[in-house]
C-alpha cells in the first residue's frame, strides 16, 4: 500500500515536471516565427481492482502535441500568396506611377514645347534661329521619350532579376521542405500519435515562406511528408525529392526570362505566367507582362504614330533650299508589330535646321489665273494629310507614295460658279481625276479638295485665295521646281502645326480608323491607365494585407503563446509539483510510522 502512494506521488511529480518543461518551451519560443503552442496531455493510469473496487494508480503523460488548426493555417498561406502577389506588384507599379507623375519627365510639356516652336516658326518660316529651336525641341522631345523608355526598361530588367532570384528562393525553400520531410518521416516512423512538433512547425513555416513567393499547396502523405504542388499541378516537392524550377531566356523576347519546370526526361517545360496565381513570382510576372508591357506599348505607339505623321508631312513639303523634305525622326514604322521596343530606338534625324520642310511643294502654274483682272490672287496651295491617312494594318504604314501630290505635274481648279468648284489632277496616283473643292474654314478664303466618299474625306490638297472664288475662274497649279526655294512660305508648316490636335494615334492599326486620339490626349490616357492600374492594385494590396493580418491574428490567437496563460500554468504546475512532493513526504511518514510500530 505504501509503495502505491509512492508511485502515485512520483507519477504526479514527473507529470508536473514535464508540464513545466513544456511551459518553459512555450515561453522560450513565444517569439519564434511559426511556433505553435505545445500542450502536454495527461491521463489517469488504469486502476487496479481491489476487493472494494478500483484504486487509482497515478497519472501518465500521454503526449505533447501542438495547438494547430489546419484550416486557419491554410487561410494564412493563401493570404500570404495573395498579399505578396499584390505588394510585389505595387512596389513596381509605384515606380511607373511616380515616373509619370513627375512634371519634369512628363511628355506633355515636351509635346507642347515642340509644337510651340513650330508655331513660333510660322511667324517667320525662313528664320534660322526659329528653325534651330524646332530642331532643339525635337531633340528634347525624343530625349524625354527615351528617358521614360530607359526607366521602363530598367524596371523590366529589375522585374526579370527579381523573377530569377525568386525562383532561386523557391528552390531553396523546396529543398528545406524536402529535408524536413526526411527528418519527420524518420522521427515519426509511422507513429501518428507522437509527432515531432517543432519539426512540423518548421515545415509549416517553410510552407508559409514558400507561399509568399509562389502559391503552393501541401498535401500530407501517410508517411508524414508533404507533397507540395504549384501552378496548375506541378509537383515541387515529393517526399525528399525536389523538382527545381529554373529560368531561361524567352525566345520571343530576349530581354525577358521564363520560368521552367523540369521534365522526367531531362528536358524542361515553360510554366505559363497565367498558371502562377499568387505570391511574389506571379506578382512580378504580372507586372512585367501586364501594366509594364502595356505602358511600354502605349508609349511606343505614341512614338511611332507621332514620328510617322511628322515625317509624312515633312516629306510633302519643301525645305529652305527648295528640296523635298526628308524624315525629321528615324523611321519607326517597322516597330508597329512590337511597339514596346520602339521608344528605345527613337531618334532625331533632322540636324540641319534648313532641312525642315516649312514651305509648300505646289505653286501657281505658268498659266496663272484666268480670266485676268479678277483681282483675286492665289495666296498659297499645298499638300495636307489626307482624311484617309492611317494604317491599314501594323505592317502597312501610311506612305506619301499614294499622296495625290506625289508625282503630280499639274492641277487645274475650275469654278463654274462661286460654290461649284472642281479640280482636275494631272500626274501622280490620281492622274486625270476630277475632285470636288469645298471651303476650308480654318483659314480665310481657304479651300480644299475632297474625294467622292460619303462623308467626303480630305484628298490632301488645300489652297487659299486673296478673295472669294469667282464664277468662271480657272487656277493653274504646278509643282515648285526642285531646288527653287520659296523661303517665306509656311503652308506645309501650318499642316505640321495642325497635327498637334489631330486624332492620329491608332492603337489597333487595323484599318478602321476609329477611336483615334491626339498625341497629348493619348499620353494622358496612358498616364490615367497607369494611375488606374496602380490604384486598383493598391486597393487590392491593402485589402489583402488586412486579410493576412486577420488570418494571422486568428491563427495566432489559437496557436500562439499567451504569456499570462503560461505564467498561470507555471504556478499551477509548480503547485502540482509541490503537492506531489507532499504526497511522497506523507507516504514516507506513514512508512516511518509502521517501522516505529515494529521496534
Amino acid at each position, binding site marked *: 500500500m505504501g509503495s502505491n502512494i509512492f508511485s502515485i506521488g512520483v507519477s504526479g511529480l514527473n507529470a508536473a515536471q514535464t508540464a513545466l518543461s513544456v511551459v518553459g518551451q512555450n515561453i522560450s519560443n*513565444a517569439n519564434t516565427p511559426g511556433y505553435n*503552442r505545445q500542450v502536454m496531455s495527461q491521463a489517469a493510469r488504469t486502476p487496479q481492482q481491489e476487493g472494494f473496487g478500483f484504486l487509482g494508480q497515478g497519472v501518465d503523460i500521454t503526449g505533447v502535441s501542438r495547438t494547430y488548426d489546419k484550416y486557419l493555417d491554410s487561410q494564412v498561406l493563401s493570404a500570404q500568396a495573395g498579399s505578396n502577389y499584390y505588394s510585389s506588384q505595387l512596389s513596381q*507599379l*509605384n515606380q511607373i*506611377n511616380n515616373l509619370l*507623375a513627375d512634371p519634369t519627365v512628363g511628355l*506633355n*510639356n515636351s*509635346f*507642347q514645347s515642340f509644337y*510651340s516652336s513650330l*508655331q513660333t516658326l*510660322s*511667324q*517667320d518660316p*525662313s528664320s534660322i534661329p526659329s528653325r534651330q529651336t524646332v530642331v532643339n525641341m525635337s531633340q528634347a522631345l525624343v530625349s524625354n521619350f527615351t528617358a521614360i523608355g530607359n526607366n521602363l526598361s530598367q524596371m523590366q530588367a529589375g522585374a526579370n532579376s527579381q523573377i530569377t532570384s525568386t525562383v532561386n528562393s523557391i528552390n531553396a525553400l523546396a529543398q528545406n521542405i524536402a529535408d524536413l520531410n526526411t527528418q519527420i518521416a524518420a522521427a515519426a516512423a509511422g507513429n501518428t500519435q507522437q509527432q515531432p512538433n517543432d519539426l512540423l512547425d518548421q515545415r509549416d513555416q517553410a510552407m508559409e515562406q514558400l507561399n509568399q513567393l509562389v502559391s503552393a499547396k501541401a498535401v500530407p502523405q501517410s508517411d508524414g511528408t508533404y507533397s507540395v504542388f504549384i501552378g496548375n499541378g506541378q509537383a515541387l516537392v515529393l517526399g525528399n525529392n525536389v523538382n527545381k524550377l529554373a529560368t531561361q531566356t524567352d525566345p520571343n523576347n530576349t530581354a525577358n526570362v521564363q520560368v521552367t519546370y523540369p521534365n522526367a526526361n531531362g528536358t524542361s517545360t515553360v510554366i505559363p505566367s497565367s498558371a502562377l496565381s499568387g505570391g511574389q513570382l506571379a506578382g512580378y510576372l504580372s507586372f512585367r507582362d501586364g501594366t509594364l508591357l502595356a505602358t511600354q506599348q502605349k508609349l511606343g505607339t505614341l512614338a511611332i504614330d507621332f514620328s510617322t505623321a511628322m515625317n509624312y508631312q515633312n516629306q510633302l513639303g519643301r525645305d529652305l533650299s527648295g528640296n523635298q523634305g526628308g524624315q525629321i525622326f528615324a523611321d519607326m514604322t517597322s516597330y508597329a508589330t512590337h511597339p514596346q521596343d520602339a521608344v528605345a530606338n527613337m531618334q532625331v534625324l533632322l540636324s540641319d535646321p534648313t532641312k525642315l520642310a516649312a*514651305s509648300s511643294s505646289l505653286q501657281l502654274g505658268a498659266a496663272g489665273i484666268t480670266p*485676268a*483682272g479678277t*483681282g483675286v*490672287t*492665289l*495666296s498659297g496651295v499645298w499638300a495636307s494629310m489626307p482624311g484617309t491617312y492611317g494604317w491599314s494594318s501594323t505592317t502597312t504604314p501610311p506612305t506619301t507614295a499614294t499622296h495625290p501630290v506625289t508625282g503630280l505635274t499639274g492641277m487645274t481648279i475650275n469654278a463654274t460658279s462661286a460654290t461649284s468648284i472642281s479640280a482636275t489632277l494631272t500626274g501622280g496616283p490620281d492622274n486625270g481625276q476630277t475632285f470636288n473643292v469645298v471651303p476650308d474654314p*480654318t*483659314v*480665310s478664303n481657304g479651300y480644299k479638295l475632297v474625294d467622292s466618299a460619303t462623308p467626303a474625306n480630305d484628298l490632301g490638297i488645300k489652297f*487659299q485665295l*486673296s478673295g472669294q472664288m469667282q464664277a468662271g475662274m480657272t487656277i493653274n497649279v504646278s509643282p515648285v521646281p526642285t531646288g527653287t526655294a*520659296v*523661303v*517665306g*512660305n*509656311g503652308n506645309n508648316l*501650318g499642316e505640321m*502645326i495642325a497635327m*498637334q*490636335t489631330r486624332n492620329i494615334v491608332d492603337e489597333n492599326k487595323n484599318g478602321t480608323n476609329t477611336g483615334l486620339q491626339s498625341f*497629348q*490626349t493619348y*499620353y*494622358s490616357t496612358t*498616364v*490615367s*491607365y*497607369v*494611375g*488606374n492600374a*496602380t*490604384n486598383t492594385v*493598391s486597393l487590392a494590396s491593402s485589402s489583402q494585407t488586412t486579410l493576412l493580418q486577420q488570418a494571422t*491574428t486568428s491563427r*495566432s*490567437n489559437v496557436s*500562439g*503563446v*499567451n*504569456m*499570462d496563460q503560461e*505564467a498561470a500554468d507555471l*504556478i499551477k504546475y509548480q503547485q502540482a509539483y509541490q503537492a506531489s512532493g507532499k504526497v511522497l513526504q506523507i507516504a514516507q511518514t506513514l512508512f516511518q510510522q509502521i517501522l516505529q510500530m515494529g521496534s
Partner: protein
Amino acid sequence: MRISTATSYMTGTYDMQSLQSQLQTLQTQLDTQKRVVTPADDPVAAARILQLSQSDGMNTQFITNTNAVESTLSLSESQLTNASNLLTSLKSAAIQAGNTVLSSDQLLMIQKQVQEGIAEMTGYANATDGKGNYLFSGDKVNTPPFVLDATYAATYQGDTGQRNVPISSSRSMQISDPGSNVFGNATSPTAVFDALKSLNDLLAQNPKPATYSTDMGNIVSALDSAQKNLSTSIASIGARRQENQSVQDMGNQLGLQYKSGISDLQDLDMPSAITNFTQTQTSLKYSQLVYNKVTSLSLFNYMS
C-alpha cells in the same frame, strides 16, 4: 476569447504602421499643396489635369502668337498709312500741277517733289520687319518686292503668297499682304508706281502736250484708285488686328478658366487636410500610448 501575446504586439504594430502611412500621405499632400500628387491618387482627375494643361499650354502659345501677329500687322499698317499719306500729298501735287498757269520751272519743282515721293514710296513698299524680311513681297521674304529702273518703271518681284499664323485651334490669321495686292490692283501689280511714273513723265514733258489737262486728270483718278486700294488694305489689316485682339482677349479668359479648372481638380483642401493631419497625429499618439500600456501588462510582474 483567447488572445496570444503576439497578437497584442502585432495589432499595435499594424495600427501604428497604418497611421504612419496615412500621416505620410497627408504630409506629401500638405508639402505639395496638391490633392493629386501621382496619377494613382485620382486617375480620372490626373488625365483631366493633363488634358487641361495641354489646352492651357496651347492657349498660352496662341496668346504669344497673337502678340506676334499684332506687332507684324501694326508694322504693316503703319507703313501703309505712311504710304497712303504720301499718296495724298502727291495727289495734291498732281492737282496743283494741273493748274495750267504754272510755269515750266514750277512744274519742274513739282516733278522733283514727285521723284522724291516715288523714292519714299519705294521705301514704304520695300519695308522690312525687324529681322530684315520684306513685308510686302509675299512668300519671297528675301527679295525686295519692288525695283524701279532709271525711268521709274517698277517691277514686282514678289509673289502672291501670304503667311498665316495660328491664333486659336480653329483659326489662322493672315499676317502678310503681298505687295501686288496692296500697291497694285487687278490689272497691274504695280499700279501705284505706274501712276506715279506717268505723273513724273508728264511733268517732264516740255513743252506740255496738248492733252496735258486730260492726261493729268487721268493720272489723278489713277492715283485716286490706287489710294482706294491702299485704304482697303489698311482697313483689312485693321479688321484683322481687331479680330486678333478679340481672339487674344478670349484666350486670356480661357487661360483663367483652364487654370482654375486645373486648380479645382488638383489643389488640396487645406483646412480639411490639416484637420485630417491633426486627427491622425493624435490617433498615432494614443496608439503609441496604448501599445506601451498593453504590452507592459503581464502576470510575471506579480510573480516573485
